[in-house]
């Protein structure tokens, strides 16, 4: 039996065994998702990282993002096929995820096209249109809001896995 972000027990985007046992898949999901979130927060904080780190970090983020999407591809297909048979909340989650995918893809694409360090360092020199920096700016802000919404809509799953991790760590130290 697995628990989902919606509190159902029939398998979802992430699977978590009940009680105090975390499945390897759930550990992979939470690890990857936390890394993605931290990487996006850092990449968005341009003044903190500086441009060079911003570009390399964003390229790495794009690669991990594809892995994230790949790992949840089953959920994407299942939810898309049953979109109108599910509740309004499921549709909202699906819509937020779709917008996030488009926004983040455009953000990475425009970032790559206006790259000043990373791509030239890889020997790629692109001549991009002048609007791409505006697109980058706009999609970065939109993505920040959508990432926050994406995480927030899974708050039950995050809380559950967080509790399980805390329980696991508290028992590890005991004799």
């Amino acid at each position, binding site marked *: 039996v697995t628990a989902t972000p919606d509190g159902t027990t029939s398998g979802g985007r992430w699977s978590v065994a009940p009680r105090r046992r975390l499945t390897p898949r759930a550990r992979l999901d939470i690890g990857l998702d936390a890394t993605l979130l931290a990487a996006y*927060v*850092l990449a*968005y*904080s*341009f*003044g*903190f*990282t*500086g*441009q*060079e780190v911003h570009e390399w970090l964003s390229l790495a983020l794009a690669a991990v993002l*594809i*892995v994230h*999407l*790949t*790992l949840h*591809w*089953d959920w994407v297909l299942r939810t898309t096929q049953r979109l109108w048979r599910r509740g309004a*909340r499921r549709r909202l989650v699906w819509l937020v995820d779709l917008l996030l*995918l*488009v926004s983040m*893809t*455009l953000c990475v*694409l*425009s970032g790559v*096209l*206006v790259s*000043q*360090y990373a791509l030239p360092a890889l020997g790629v020199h692109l*001549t*991009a*249109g*002048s*609007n*791409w*920096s*505006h*697109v*980058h*700016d706009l999609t970065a802000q939109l993505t*920040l*809001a959508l*990432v*926050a*919404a994406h*995480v*927030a*809509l899974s*708050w039950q799953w995050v809380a559950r896995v967080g509790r399980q991790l805390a329980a696991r760590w508290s028992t590890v130290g005991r004799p």
Partner: protein
Amino acid sequence: VRFVRHLVASSLVIAFICAVAVFAGLGGQPGKPAIFCPHGCTPQSLGLTPGDPALRHLAAPASGHQPPGPDYANLAQTVVLGTAVAMLVVAVDVTARRRRRARRTRST
């Protein structure tokens, strides 16, 4: 094999979004230089007006030199903004859930 299949499918979706954006001309006229530069640029050096929204990332000081270190305030701003949006969404979600539950209880 399944992972590879899903990887190919998700990559194709991403490639499709990129292709649509490029062919729709979202980036404007190619050949013009992108308005983007590392720390130290000034709007004037790029031939732009100071209030241009494309200069959000520049954060160039008046002297035009690179800032001495990482801007922690910028990081904090991102965290606060993201957390605020997330908390708002959670609050709305919890309220909707409670209302649904109350309606269900009333109907039974």
